[in-house]
């Protein structure tokens, strides 16, 4: 499928999850998106899944303790200064689950975009929004680039008999990674300028024409957003 309609469909799935009123809607969207994500290589996918799971689980666990809704108490804890009595109600758990599923669905919608879509064609087909699409594509590529740099950095350290240990050890490698990506960004900008980026009168390499499934994906995207607002 062409990346434009596919990206629209993914965005619509994320929007439908945000707009929905019931927990089962984002849950169903998560299942669908997970099935799509499994087409990506597991080695790359697992890091992204971890990035989805950590904030979603955090919201699921934290919400019952920071909210005060409902009266079906499951557990009643001590009184904490400022916060008041810590208790967990079934309504808080349900709300926490819904919020966590919404966040997971929105983040999972980004995964096929990052891992499976052809960003080149997406940027090329973005018409007047090409600069923005290219900026997003380059930002998306930052993750695998950082991944590769981190792997190179670990190899370099292991090659010297050093192994990062503990939180402080791992934190130490963040700074060179960030500095390295800033350097890369500057060099890339220079290269783009040298290759005529931003010059007026650009053309576009031919791309395959849209078929029925591309138009179908666009229609489905519109329906999903409308359905999210009205029924889901």
């Amino acid at each position, binding site marked *: 499928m062409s990346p434009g309609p596919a990206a629209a469909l993914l965005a619509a799935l994320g929007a439908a999850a945000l707009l929905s009123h019931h927990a089962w809607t984002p849950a169903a969207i998560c299942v669908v998106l997970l099935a799509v994500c499994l087409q990506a290589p597991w080695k790359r996918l697992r890091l992204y899944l971890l990035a989805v799971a950590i904030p979603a689980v955090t919201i699921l666990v934290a919400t019952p303790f920071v909210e005060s809704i409902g009266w079906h108490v499951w557990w009643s804890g001590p009184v904490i200064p400022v916060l008041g009595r810590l208790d967990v109600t079934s309504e808080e758990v349900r709300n926490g689950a819904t919020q966590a599923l919404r966040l997971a669905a929105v983040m999972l919608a980004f995964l096929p975009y990052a891992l499976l879509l052809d960003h080149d064609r997406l940027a090329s087909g973005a018409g007047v929004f090409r600069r923005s699409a290219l900026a997003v594509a380059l930002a998306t590529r930052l993750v695998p680039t950082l991944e590769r740099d981190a792997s190179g950095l670990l190899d*370099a350290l292991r090659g010297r008999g050093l192994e990062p240990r503990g939180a402080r050890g791992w934190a130490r490698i963040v700074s060179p990674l960030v500095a390295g990506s800033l350097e890369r960004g500057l060099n890339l900008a220079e290269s783009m300028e040298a*290759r005529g980026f931003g010059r007026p009168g650009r053309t576009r390499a031919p791309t395959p024409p849209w078929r029925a499934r591309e138009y179908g994906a666009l229609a489905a995207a519109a329906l999903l957003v409308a359905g999210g607002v009205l029924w889901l």
Partner: protein
Amino acid sequence: MALACVEEVRFTYPGASAPALDGISVAIEPGEVVLLLGASGSGKSTLLRCLGGLVPHFHGGRFEGAVSVSGLDTRTHRPSELVGAVATVFQDPEDQVVLTRVRNEVAFGLENLGVPPAEIFPRVSAALDAVGAGHLQGRLVHELSGGELQRVCVASALALEPRLLLLDEPTSQLDPEGAELVLELARQRGLAVVVAEQRPAQVLELCDRALFLEAGRIVDGIPKAWTTEPDPPARRVAGALVASLRQAAFGGRLTPFDLDLRRGEIVAVVGPNGSGKTTLAKLAAGLVAPTSGVVHRQGRASYLPQDPGRYLVRERADEEVALGADLQRALAALRSVGLEGLEHRHPRDLSSGERERLALAAVLVTEPDLLVLDEPTRGVDPERKLRLAELLRRQSDDRATLVVSHDRSFVTAVADRVVSLASRVEALVA
């Protein structure tokens, strides 16, 4: 009439105390191939950036004098306006790739140039075929080796059909055949080429003239070390076995391979881009396990990766080296690679050549039984390269050393034995 004219150019980078170019004048004729030689920081890359218009437009700084290319004054024309007349291939291919797929990457410049859509992919294919990378068209750029990526970058430049091609150390990643191919192609197409190099032996014969830069000025004559091939070292008897690879393979990257590494011996691994040299080096150093076959190793192995300057983690040069040993040994290691006086500098404030040497010191200080170096002479000038070869040979009695390199003269100067991944034939360096 000259295709490009540099007239009395003096340029200082923002915040720098000394000029990077100090009164340079040079004219490039159509079809002429000019070689720029000089140590790290001598102004080679800055001169290329002047010819491409990136200095002063992209870098800012204080610019005096004038540069014109194809009749366009670079002071009044931005680099993007010079595309078509000039194309640049930068030193590090990984930092110049914009798109994710090879054929789209090569098409990027053509789209910017406004080439009619129907002509774009035929020109992409022709350029990739010309540099021997036609088979890479559908590949993702992050799957390519450094050398393959460099070929793609060269194809991106050639596809633009420029009149002036600027190459910044093309042999830092390309195999020698690849570098020669690029210059031959430029000759066939009648392009003028300005090529900055630290490995002149590989391109000197293909150039019409060579300019030597020192502290931002063109000086007369070229130091002997830059133009003569080093003598091969005296043969030695290898000692005890430190590491052995038996039918060791790694996925599709390295087919089953046998190799013995002995104490007191320096083995160089050569071969074309993508032949699996780096994978072999990582297998030997124990950074990856073979997917089939076995690797035996005795004692400690240390590994210097390609482009090691990227992988420095501390904020002072001496602290970086001292990660692998005590401070006294770290200072001695810094002296051994010619970095005395720079102990307190931040590694990222050093030039690329100095960073490479800092990373080398950080590995040497660990005093391993097996030392594995992957392209250790990138960005290192010939004089320093000879000193590095001497240093490695001096220290090699106590260890086995494996060097992966495209640098013919360095291999000649340092290796007791050369292993080619292309032919799988081991040859003694005579």
